[in-house]
């Protein structure tokens, strides 16, 4: 019967740590993208609203 669990020393722990780091990086990236999407989208909506308000006005009689 082999006893592979005790061979290789602390290699499993290193891989787990690496996986954590990668997951953290992915999480940060996703969080950044989400924040970016929300911010970029909100900004676009806000700019469109401002432009709409500035442009859409009925011509008043006698204004030429």
């Amino acid at each position, binding site marked *: 019967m082999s006893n592979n669990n005790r061979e290789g020393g602390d290699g499993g722990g290193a891989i787990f740590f690496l996986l954590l780091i990668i997951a953290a990086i992915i999480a940060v990236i996703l969080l950044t993208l989400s924040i*970016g999407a929300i*911010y*970029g989208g909100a*900004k*676009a*909506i806000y700019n469109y609203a*401002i*432009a*709409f308000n500035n442009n859409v006005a009925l011509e008043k*009689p006698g204004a030429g």
Partner: protein
Amino acid sequence: MENQPAIKSYVFEKGYKDLWNTIQDSWKANLKEAKQHFGQSETTVTGAFHLGVGISIIVFGSIFFGMISLLHVSLMLIFASIIYLAFSIIWGADKLYRSINKIFTACPHPGCYHKFDIPIYHCPNCNSPHTRLHPGPYGILSRTCKCGANLPQTFFNGRKKLAASCPNSTCGLPIDTKESRPIVIPIIGAPSVGKTCFATSLVYYMKEELGPTEETQFEFTSQVSSLTYEHNLASFKNGGAPLKTVEAHPSAINIFLQLKHQKIRRILYLFDPAGEAYLDTSNTQTHRFYDYFHGAFFLIDPFSIPAFYHEYAEKITINDVKPSAEHLEDVYDRVIINLEKNYGIKPDQKIKAPLAIVFTKVDVADLEDKFGETAGRIIQESDPSKFKSLDDGINEACRNFLMDYEMAPILNKFESKFKNFRFFSVSSKGANSVRIKAPTKWLLEQIDASFKKIDQD
């Protein structure tokens, strides 16, 4: 389309400008903000943050901008389509209403006589002329004049109440038709045949005998028509006759006439040009009412017939009778030449408009025995199954009169050129006229079947 002094509907012009400007301004604002953030990007944490924000605005901002723009365009197109459909339906209904009810505008003013769909309407506030006051780019049911006044644009919301004028640029005079259905009737005849006497007597019959009944409404459209009539009628009351007409291009005598059961008011146009107008075809080619006339009176002075005049020359007082010197066939030929040359009637084409051929001066000498009541009764009693009424008898008597006095050619001309004509004999003396009712009633009934209900005995 000709520009109107009114504000265009939002979805015909400004809406699209606003849409484009909104899209442009929004895009520029996004780019500007992104550039600001890119300008602050450095190799620091803050700089990286600004870089990220700039990228977010460009990438995600553009996606959201595209979606919102598409939504705005779609909503605009849907709204515009609804407006276009609504105005097309109302415009079509307005046009159909006028077509079904045969409503058009005819200018009654001398020398113009042009025909139009609708007149120029004027703003009640600033008097600006609106040449196309109907549903369109300036509004569906109403439009806003540049002065701010609201103008109705259809037959059912009050357009006809606005002041109107002739669209012909060389005329431009006021028109009072109120979008009524025109009945255009010229009175044709040589000089001294009695056209003005006949016209005055005809109007008297309509005003004093037809008008006062509960079944009929009678109204002059303008003071000009009313004063002309009153002036001519006064001549009869003073024992004389109306003055000779001198205008080759007369104003129409305009009368609003409406029977109780008629939904649309009629406007009668009676044209009484000077007899001299019929002495030369160049005078009548400007009588544009022949382009759209509905029927006509053709007046015959029996004393203009040579054979008859020679027989009666010593029995009559020339100054009292004032016989017409012009040969009636010549007058007839000139009218037909004018119609064929200038108004699209082909030489072999029969004219559909009814023609009431009226012998005048039946009160002179014994003309009642020739083609008046006496002659008519004799014929009626000779064959009651064929001649059912006195009018039938008089019609036949007039025909016989023409045959007896060598005027068969003119009778043949009437038969070859007109699908529908009938003879009458009258004495036109205003209130003391004889048998004015018969040709008037007949012609109106032939033109407009709803007049068959008037004055039923």
